[in-house]
């Protein structure tokens, strides 16, 4: 686990440093730019889907689904970051307490 943390940390820092160091024309290539824009979208979306709809690697509708729904609503209403997270946590906890 610590090897993964250390490796990922070094990788993330190296990417930041590379962005400030690499000649602009390399990263300015339109395909690189497109991939750079699409990658975070795909990753974040995949994380959201997996964390919302699966429990222990199996598809399952849990209280988390309701929490994520509230998060989407909060983001749509332009709520601050912290409010979005607290609303999702509170809703999930509430559903668990009731059901």
């Amino acid at each position, binding site marked *: 686990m610590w090897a993964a943390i250390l490796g990922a940390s070094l*990788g993330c820092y190296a990417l930041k*440093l590379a962005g400030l160091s690499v000649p602009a024309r390399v*990263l300015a290539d339109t395909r690189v730019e497109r991939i750079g*824009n699409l990658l975070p979208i795909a*990753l974040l979306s995949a994380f959201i*889907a997996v964390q919302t709809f699966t429990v222990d690697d199996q598809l399952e509708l849990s209280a988390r689904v309701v929490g994520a729904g509230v998060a989407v609503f909060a983001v749509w209403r332009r709520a601050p970051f912290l409010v*979005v997270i607290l609303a999702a946590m509170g809703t999930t906890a509430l559903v668990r307490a009731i059901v």
Partner: protein
Amino acid sequence: MFTGASQFALVSVADNPAAGAASAIILGTRNAMYGLRLTPLLRVRGIRKAAAAQLVLDESTAMAIGQSTDDDGRVGFWTTGIAVFVFWNLATLVGALGADALSNPEDFGLDAAAPAAFIALLAPRMRGREPWAVAVAAGAVALMVTPFVPAGVPILLAALGAVAAGLRGRS
């Protein structure tokens, strides 16, 4: 590692550290793109460049390139970067110390915090048809393969799909 989305990514696939590290690094690639936009503005070298690199973030980049003059942009970058660095890490420390006080984190809905954070991070990127298509496809692929592959692999498959889409299309 000072880049929030990558931190969350690594933690959420803790069952499979290698896949977690890979997705953390892939999520960090956007910081390299930010660096490109910041280089002509910051004009840093040596030790100051090493420090500036650690402060390249969604927030500091937004505050830097949103200003009308280069001077304001530099002030925006450094103040935002340092402020986020200090408070993010302080809050992380508080969270780490406080976690032991919680008997069962699920009672507080803590497992909903990460997806909610990702939803908030994703929302500003969802402009136009292509981001929606990529996001829906990535989510669907990840869910479909989850029961059959090790943890973390669904995320990496979704990332590969995005690379393929990026290589194929024109902008």
